[in-house]
């Protein structure tokens, strides 16, 4: 690789002070040093809270000063130290020499401005380009990032673009002034796997074509292997290991790197149990949301969130439901629990659920539970952990003594691997993974037979994802549970599912035993999904969404 260093970070520290003035400080980044050479891709890897984003933001001095402070270090770019530079000079660097692409394409673009205006703004700021010259450059970068028919997209607003296209526009903005260094802060985390593969391929291609350097921040080691030349592994604000990608993946030195590499969920799916009693049977399930128009609210059409989905699930099995966002998989899970209305028979343990009223559903809720994606949103912030877990017991066992309830809570917490002594604390005192364990404890305390797991691992770091998968599997074995596992992460699904449904736009594309399906996917869409998830390969145009 090139040896000439473009950006050199030396001994950088970032401290955040709490409260207004002179409060206690937290060291978010702790004496970090690394170099980025010309035309090189460096990846910063670590779990959330490891300080990787803070490091990236401090390069452009985008931290909330003066709450943030640099107790030590220097950031040398072309012989200048950014930390000594004035805010005015920094503004000249931002968006011109160094640009940044953020994680969330939904909020990174101003919803009130057209694409042309947003890209045109930085061209005007740094190069004084306007009018026809600016438009030519905008069209050029838009076609560079693979926006089809850029001419017609100039007047589009962000909401008219898909998530992947928005991220492409963000990259176009970052490229507009031909930067020397592009910082990509988890640019694909919020995207579907198929789109993620496309964006990675795009970034790699652009980087090679334009000869710029890339600082890529991610928690996903698969991406690092695909894109980076060198990698820095961060943990608790320190770089614990750095080196060439091949070397680090082949011979990790630091125990943490080894743990990260070993964090892949182990595939050991639940076996098919065709002889076990049928737990859930849904036939031709339809969830159509009406689209109304006019004064009289006439129904002019339907959004078909789920269209003719058929499910058969025996006790002890796991049904994986996969698909891109918007494919209707979460809606399906909620419809089966009768949290939203649907059409078509749903038989649960031989009883028909469709048409039951809320009160009539209550006895069945004892046996069917749900774990949600967001461990922060799914626990009431004002109740203690014990109260949260106890809630279901109060509903379904109103005569149970308080002591007995407590016993059940303690048992549930033990089952999910949490210290029962923590049950009087509030959710905000727990980390994301621990909260998700609490959510699982809430579901299993009633000893249900069937649990809908709605992306239970998506908001978690890699290492914790693997732990969560192990926990779910051991609970399933011990209690003979039946899962409906909804996820867009095929690696996790592969580790758990015995059946698989691939959904797209509300319809089942492919269904069958997981083992067969992973081996011989029949439809192009499934193949593209698998390729993107397991190898970060892109599919030919037209098969998946852009």
């Amino acid at each position, binding site marked *: 690789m090139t040896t000439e260093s473009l950006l050199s970070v030396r001994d950088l520290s970032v401290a*955040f002070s709490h409260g207004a003035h002179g409060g206690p400080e937290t060291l*978010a980044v702790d004496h970090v040093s690394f170099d980025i050479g010309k035309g090189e891709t460096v990846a910063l890897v670590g*779990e959330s809270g490891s300080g990787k984003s*803070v490091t990236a933001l401090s390069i452009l001095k985008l931290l909330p000063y003066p709450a943030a402070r640099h107790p030590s270090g220097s950031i040398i770019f072309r012989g200048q130290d950014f930390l000594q530079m004035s805010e005015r000079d920094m503004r000249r660097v931002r968006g011109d020499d160094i640009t940044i692409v953020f994680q969330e394409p939904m909020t990174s673009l101003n919803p009130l401005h057209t694409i042309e205006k947003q890209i045109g703004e930085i061209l005007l700021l740094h190069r004084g380009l306007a009018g026809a010259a600016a438009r030519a450059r905008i069209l050029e970068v838009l076609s560079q990032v693979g926006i089809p028919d850029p001419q017609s997209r100039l007047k589009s607003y962000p909401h008219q673009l898909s998530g992947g296209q928005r991220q492409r526009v963000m990259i176009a903005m970052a490229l507009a002034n031909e930067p020397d260094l592009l910082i990509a802060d988890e640019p694909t985390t919020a995207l579907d796997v198929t789109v993620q593969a496309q964006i990675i391929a795009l970034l790699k291609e652009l980087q090679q074509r334009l000869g710029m350097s890339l600082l890529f921040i991610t928690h996903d080691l698969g991406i690092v292997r695909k894109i980076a030349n060198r990698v820095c592994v961060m943990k608790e604000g320190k770089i614990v290991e750095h080196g060439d990608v091949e070397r680090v993946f082949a011979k990790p030195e630091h125990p943490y790197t080894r743990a990260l590499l070993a964090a892949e969920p182990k595939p050991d799916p639940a076996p098919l149990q065709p002889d076990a009693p049928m737990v859930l049977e849904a036939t031709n399930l339809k969830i159509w949301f009406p689209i109304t128009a006019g004064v009289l609210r006439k129904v002019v059409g339907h959004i078909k969130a789920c269209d003719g989905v058929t499910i058969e699930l025996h006790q002890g099995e796991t049904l994986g439901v996969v698909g891109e966002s918007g494919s209707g998989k979460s809606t399906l899970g909620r419809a089966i629990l009768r949290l939203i209305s649907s059409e078509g028979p749903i038989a649960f343990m031989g009883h028909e659920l469709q048409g039951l009223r809320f009160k009539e559903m209550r006895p069945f*809720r004892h046996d069917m*539970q749900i774990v949600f994606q*967001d461990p922060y949103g*799914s626990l009431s912030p004002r109740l203690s952990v014990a109260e949260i877990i106890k809630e279901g017991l109060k509903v379904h066992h109103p005569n149970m003594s308080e002591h007995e309830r407590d016993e059940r809570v303690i048992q549930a917490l033990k089952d999910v691997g949490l210290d029962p002594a923590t049950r009087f604390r509030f959710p905000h005192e727990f980390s994301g993974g621990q909260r998700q364990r609490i959510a699982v404890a809430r579901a299993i305390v009633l000893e249900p037979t069937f649990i809908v797991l709605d992306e239970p691992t998506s908001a978690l770091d890699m290492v914790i994802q693997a*732990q969560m998968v192990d926990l779910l599997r051991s609970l399933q074995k011990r209690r003979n549970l039946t899962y409906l596992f909804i996820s867009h992460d095929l690696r996790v699904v592969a580790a758990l599912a015995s059946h698989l449904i691939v959904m797209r736009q509300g319809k089942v594309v492919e269904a069958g035993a997981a083992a067969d399906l992973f081996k011989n996917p029949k439809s192009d869409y499934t193949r593209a999904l698998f390729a993107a998830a397991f190898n970060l390969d892109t599919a030919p145009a037209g098969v998946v969404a852009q």
Partner: protein
Amino acid sequence: MDARTLLEKTIEKAEDPTIPPEPRPKPDIEPAGPLGLAVLPIGIEFSPINIRRWRNFKANRRGYWSLWIFLVLFVVTLFAEFIANDKPLYLRYDGKSYFPVIFTYPETTFGGDFETATDYRDSYLQKLIAEKGGFMLWPPIHYSYNTHNLDLPTPAPSKPTWMLTAAECKAVLERKGLNSCGDLEYNWLGTDDQGRDVLARLIYGFRVSVLFGLILTIVSSVIGIAAGAIQGYFGGWIDLLFQRFIEIWTSVPELYLLLIISSVLVPGFFVLLGILLLFSWVRLVGLVRAEFLRGRNFEYIQAARALGVSNAVIMFRHLLPNAMVATMTFLPFIMSSSVMTLTALDFLGFGLPPGSPSLGELLSQGKANVQAPWLGLAGFFTVALMLSLLIFIGEAVRDAFDPRKTFT
């Protein structure tokens, strides 16, 4: 990414479920306010977020001191009968103890001629008691809100006693056999146009205003929160119909209706309360409705529904605490506007029945008697003080519940 998420990210600990989370910081509430009273009863555990809110509240010095001043004034005026009254607190007569503030005794008890309630201010009766070696412990102010000072040195409204000149006192002094103006029974803030003590009326008036405001605020909040909660939680047709009803209801001209009703019903404390309540409950509905609309889609609400928890429990246990933050922020302001409404009605003469102690009535007397500035000034400063205190408290409460301050 803003500072908060950055901070949270940096603080978040590495994952290991076997390590219990950090011990909760001990709630270190200083137990004493400026008067040395316990601020929070020991033994009740407050959630950390409420402790932080209390700290934020205290950080706003103006609001914090306003709360104390207001509480002191409120508690003191609650015992107005023991501060300003035309009956002694304690009476020793003929070897027996009497508590005239609490019990009513006929004049005959003390050797008077009539079976009527004793007028302890009557000099004849005072003489009778003194002859038997009696002893009277008076409250600091010897007038109640409806006591007419019969020994006015000047025609009512009469000046504060300390402003009187020797010439003005002369007639009364001669009649009562006293030496100087200083020996008179003091009217610290003068008297109103019927010779009643202004200070005594202020104390009673303050109490009525605050109690009226408090009751109106609480009752209208309860109704408003319930209505908002039902609309927000159930949505759909219930929400639609209720919203339209409220739109029509709020467009009814409140003041005219009040004038009409008060000409039919005799406007007493509770009649006024009821009439004002008819319109004031709407104020919180929109706020609470919005909170419930937002909250009912939270995942933990979904989770509770999936557990089979009933609607009422979800509303009460899970959603109401969210709405309470917005509601609490509004309460002091609702209270100050309730006080203001009552004062305005009294000022216009459509408020409490004649003779009741009321700040609005004092203000209108001040307007009618410009030559007696103590009336208007006393009323103005009391109302201004009360409303300012409430607004300052409200600002501090708003700061305390500000989520941006709560989490940093």
